């Protein structure tokens, strides 16, 4: 065929090529290789997702043999529930508190560590290490540090002559405490992605800036930032999706408390499903969460297409 555009006849040949013995084995091998992954994805993601969607129209505790069909009543009572909006608000608080700071710090660190100096690998490693440590283990360690009576953070504050805080034990400071830990945990990830983005920027552009007499700030503003846009966009999308799904930190550190101050949406869902045994209701939450994340991501892509120019 060469570079010719495939004609209808060619397409048909390709489509039915598996009829030929040799092509048939290729066909089998190809699908054979994809099959294990496909089976797993279908069995553990697609089937449960569709099944869950059906359950969201029922009232069920996952144990009783009878499932009552209740139509849209789960969705209806969810949209009327103040607890739901509260958890949505808490999740947004978390998003707004973490994402801008993590990204700004990550970018700053990436720029700082995108140079050659002795020990640079060590620093990259240090900042990245929280990303690969277990969230649950780190949650426990941070709980010790945040302890209002015996914690090291309050001890340090006292040494500096500052008033000690209640941290995760008070409704007003619990969320900021989780946010601080989240930033510490995820800044390394953003840094590594930004580093990769930085290193893909062609060096000659900076040389051109040198010739034109651009300073450091001009270089960052006119070369680095615009060329990093795809990276920034990727991190933003991934961060929003991941932060919406935050659960492990809350489960280990605060259990949604004190006084519901950290009851993020997934924890709200977990409680409905496994403490109140309202599985249908929980699935309704899951689907609303899905719609929210989907809509947000779609909107981001639409905006991203206009604002971002891939090289």
């Amino acid at each position, binding site marked *: 065929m060469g570079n010719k555009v495939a004609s209808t006849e060619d397409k048909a040949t390709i489509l039915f090529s598996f009829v030929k013995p040799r092509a048939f084995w290729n066909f089998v091998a190809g699908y054979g290789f994809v099959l294990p992954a496909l089976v797993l994805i279908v069995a553990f993601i697609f089937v449960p997702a569709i099944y869950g969607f059906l359950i969201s129209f029922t009232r069920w505790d996952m144990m009783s043999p009878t499932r009552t069909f209740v139509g849209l009543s789960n969705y209806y009572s969810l949209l009327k529930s103040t607890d739901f909006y509260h958890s949505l608000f808490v999740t947004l608080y978390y998003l707004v508190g973490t994402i801008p700071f993590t990204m700004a710090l990550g970018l700053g660190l990436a720029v700082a560590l995108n140079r050659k100096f002795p020990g640079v690998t060590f620093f990259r490693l240090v900042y990245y290490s929280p990303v690969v440590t277990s969230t649950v283990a780190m949650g426990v360690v941070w709980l010790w540090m945040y302890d209002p009576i015996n914690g090291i953070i309050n001890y340090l504050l006292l040494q500096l002559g500052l008033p000690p805080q209640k941290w995760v034990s008070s409704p007003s400071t619990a969320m900021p405490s989780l946010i601080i830990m989240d930033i510490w945990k995820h800044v390394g990830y953003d840094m590594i992605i930004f580093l990769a983005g930085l290193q893909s920027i062609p060096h000659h552009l900076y040389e051109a800036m040198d010739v034109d007499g651009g300073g450091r700030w001009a270089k960052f503003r006119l070369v680095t930032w615009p060329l990093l846009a795809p990276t920034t966009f990727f991190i933003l999308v991934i961060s929003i999706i991941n932060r919406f799904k935050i659960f492990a930190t809350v489960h280990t550190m605060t259990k949604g408390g004190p*006084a519901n101050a950290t009851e993020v949406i997934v924890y709200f869902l977990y409680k409905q499903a496994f403490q109140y045994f309202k599985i249908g209701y929980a699935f309704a939450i899951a689907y609303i969460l899905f719609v929210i994340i989907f809509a947000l991501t779609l909107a981001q892509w639409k905006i991203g297409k206009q604002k971002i120019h891939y090289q």
Partner: protein
Amino acid sequence: MRLQRRTERAYAEKGGDKMNSFLRLVLKTPYRIAFWAMGMMIAPFFFQPTVYGQVTIDFWHAMEGPKGPALTEMVKDFMKEHPNIKVNVSLQGGYTDIVRKVQAGIAANALPDLLMLGQRHGIPQISDSGRLLVLDEYVTAEDRKDIGPGLFGRYSYKGKVMAIPFAVSTPIFHINANRFKEVGLNPDKPPTTWDELVAYAKKLTRDVDGDGRIDQWGFNIHSDIPWHVYGFIYQNGGTLYGPDGQSKLDSPEVIQAIQFWSDLVHKHKVMPPMAHEGGSKLFTAGNLGIFQRSSAFIEGAAKAIGKRFDYRVAYLPKGKIYAVPDGGGGLGVFKSTPEKERAAITLLKWLTSTKGIARFSKDTGYITFRKSSIAIPEMKAYFAENTRDHVAAEQMEYVRSNPVNHADGAIWDGLGNLIEKIESNPKADIPALLKEFNAKVNKEIVEYRGK
């Protein structure tokens, strides 16, 4: 085998006929080993060694930490006595994990025969699934008298016994006698009423180094807050549910109980606000006079304290009456075949017998809740050395529980939140909060009935 032949052919094509027999052997061996290994792995599924008349049952429990091995040892001894019953014991995580696994097990039809059930973890839902065996016919009148109605009520649903109490604990006062003596209190006379508790705790709350911050607290409660709220409510003569099964969380008794809790923090200032998580450390470090926590804490506390101070335990005080809420878990049986059910019941009866409870409480620190167990000579000797465990066992006289209700989870969760709201806000309107909470719980109860 086809793959093997093909690969051999591939090697043969490369090396031709020159491939010597040694190389052929080396190349073939891995296949042979793999073939036989797979065969040996699969074989046991086809040829299970069966002893004639032997029954195998599964037992899921929730005894995390050193308590698990103690239970496993007991089951091993049971199997020695009953050679025709084989028990597979497995730890399934905590009580919440076990309920989640039962949820999955019901869907997958893979349930154990004997199950440990947390006293507030899904008993109504699991019972309503119709898979649990009703145990009424296996409970004798002596059992009921020996164990007491306070505990049995907690494991009964719709008037039927769904589980037998087994790993039982209650809250108890953990006392630092050294602190008592320092402020001129007699540790032999711990507080017996709410008023005395306040008076004692006020004396015990001190700023020793004079920096304006309190460093020795009079009183604190462990972080399983709702459980202790139950205690306060019972002591004040209140209940969680009325006889009609609706919640009674806006009754004057409940309001007073919550108000008392709030006063301990805000009015009398003897309990640090929102510091329940750190209570245990505060106590073992010697900076807490009275600590209300589960009797299951006795062993760990004694170990952590060592000989640093005189550690004692005492009854919870009375408000209007003496009362302690029950905690822990019981044992239930899932329906299966008659042989398996019989085997599971045999194990259940063995474990919850007078001897079984005596041994289990001695090995794990759970309460000896059977009166007959306390009376056996072996236990008397044990209590002579472990006086703290004896106090916990005697306090069982005052154990109370609320009837099982599927709104238990919502109440537990909501009470925790309520206390957090009240402790973090001195101006919280307690009656209004309780009224709102009660309405919410009642709505759930009505909704569940409607199904």
